[in-house]
């Protein structure tokens, strides 16, 4: 297993703390494709060490859409330790992400993170599956890279509404083999994804599966992982306030033997064992109608 990297960060009064709370300069911010935006921030390398699956709480600026009062959780899309940059991939859906899209180089963005616990990676594994949908792909980019580093083979199924919305494929193409599936041609149906996974598993069996971005896929992978005998993890989102584990807003039920335990997504997650999730439907992002953040 990879160790959780604990690096120290310079916060208030020059003291070092495990979580960075600071305003970072915006290097670039702009649309990619027709649905998503990509923002890059400058940061000292030690501030960037995060595990795949961890997230930051961003204090999005106000815009004509409104003034987002609370921070928005956003999973790390990429970290470049050579140049000292961290990147987030987002979809403009509400007042938080609309505000985010107004930032230009020269502005700063107040970030808090890295937060939560990341994915488990075991170098002993031969072949793993990643199924991600839409902006959930952002969460999986760093994971693909880390799997590759650990010599684990990867097959990814990336699900989108339309071929035009295709985004975030690069890390998977670089580090594994990719299937893209779409709503427009029906290939993203649960039934088609189900048979695709079974075919791939028959070809080269999966040791583990990861998913993010779709509640239906969580259900599917829960079934498949018990039928086909591999473990798995899911990165979840839940509406949160502090992000640090203090306010108990972002809870979800986890199966614990015969009982159910309520845990905080921000501090005990956002990554959980697939089998522990009782009701994937009960996770929600900032806006009921659309999934805003990538967690």
């Amino acid at each position, binding site marked *: 297993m990879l160790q959780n990297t604990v690096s120290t960060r310079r916060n*208030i009064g020059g003291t070092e*703390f495990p979580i960075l709370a600071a305003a970072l300069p915006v290097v670039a911010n702009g649309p990619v494709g027709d649905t998503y935006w990509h923002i890059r921030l400058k940061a000292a390398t030690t501030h960037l060490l995060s595990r795949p699956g961890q997230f930051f709480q961003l204090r999005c600026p106000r815009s004509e859409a409104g003034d987002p*009062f*609370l921070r928005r959780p956003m999973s790390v899309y990429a970290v470049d330790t050579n140049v000292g940059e961290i990147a987030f991939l987002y979809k403009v859906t509400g007042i938080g992400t609309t505000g985010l899209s107004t930032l230009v180089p020269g502005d700063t963005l*107040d970030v*808090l993170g890295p937060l939560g616990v990341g994915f488990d990676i075991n170098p002993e594994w031969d072949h793993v599956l990643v199924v991600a949908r839409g902006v959930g792909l952002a969460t999986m980019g760093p994971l693909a890279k880390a799997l590759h580093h650990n010599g684990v083979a990867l097959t990814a199924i990336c699900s989108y509404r339309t071929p035009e919305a295709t985004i975030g494929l690069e890390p998977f193409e670089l580090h594994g083999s990719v299937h893209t599936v779409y709503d427009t041609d029906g290939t993203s149906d649960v039934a088609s994804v189900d048979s695709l996974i079974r075919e791939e598993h028959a070809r080269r069996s999966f040791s583990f599966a990861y998913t993010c971005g779709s509640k239906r896929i969580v259900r599917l992978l829960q079934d498949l992982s018990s039928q086909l005998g591999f473990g798995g993890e899911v990165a979840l989102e839940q509406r949160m*306030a502090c992000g640090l584990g203090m306010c108990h*807003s972002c809870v979800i039920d986890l199966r614990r033997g015969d009982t159910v335990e309520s845990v905080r997504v921000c501090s005990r997650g956002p990554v959980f064992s697939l089998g522990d999730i009782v009701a994937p439907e009960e996770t929600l992002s900032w806006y009921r109608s659309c999934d805003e953040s990538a967690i």
Partner: protein
Amino acid sequence: MSVVLETVCGGVRLRSPIMPASGTFSHEMENVLDLGQLSALVLKTTTYTSRRGNPVPRVTETSFGMLNSIGIPGGGIQHFVANELPKYRRSGAPIVASISADTAAQFGEMAAILSDEGLAAIELNISCPNIEADGQAFAMSREATARVVATARRATTLPLWAKLTPNTGEIVNIAKAAESAGADALVVANTILALAIDADSRRAELGNIMGGLSGPGVKPIILRMVYQCARKVSIPIIGCGGISSGRDVVEYLLAGATTVQVGTESFRDPTALVRIERELVEFCDGRGISSLRELIGGLMVQDAPAGAPDVDVAP
């Protein structure tokens, strides 16, 4: 010489007048600041028995604030003493436990259990529903407030801070009842009962339908309550509602508060408690204010009528 921040509030010596508000602080804050820098650690409310808390969504935002309906989840008082409290002893800062219960007798039992745990004070969260009064919060009624405070008073020698609800039309009378029953200080106040609706889905934003409003939007209302209470009680008042800057603290002191608690702002800026203290010092030093006593109750009122009415001040 910089302004002296040290103060005594309701039987507790504090390094500074700025504390976290219950439910918005826990030991995880040590990931961004040194808990030893805080003047006191006011812990999340503990209930008599264990509670699951409310359904999600438990928070939502609004202009100038947020609503929450967390529902005080937790393992109950025994679990708190055995598993939670030890996490806070290391920092050396005074610890204030917040308690809540269904009945006055349970408040008393909890106060007794906490008496030998090295606490600086107990905060009585009487803004929660009173099972003996059809779920109406204790602090909605003078009698229920007096009963809880008096019962806790008999059970412990620790300083008792009574945390009032702003959801009453007679906060001054409630404040007086708490004082007469033996409270050492008053926290004014908890959150304001509120409702947020999503027009598209026609559903309430919170799983519990209603929740408590907090943040900058409530500040003028709570400031007014602090002002009203401070003129009628002689125990210290801890102002709490919408503080996000050093200037806000000054406003609360001027209204009559001795100290303050900061809640929601720690969610926006997790280092807010340290920043706000620095801003308060800058404010005072920039104006040659050497003691906070110069500010407390210092609101300038033109031709203050001697017998100004308490509540029915028509705008």
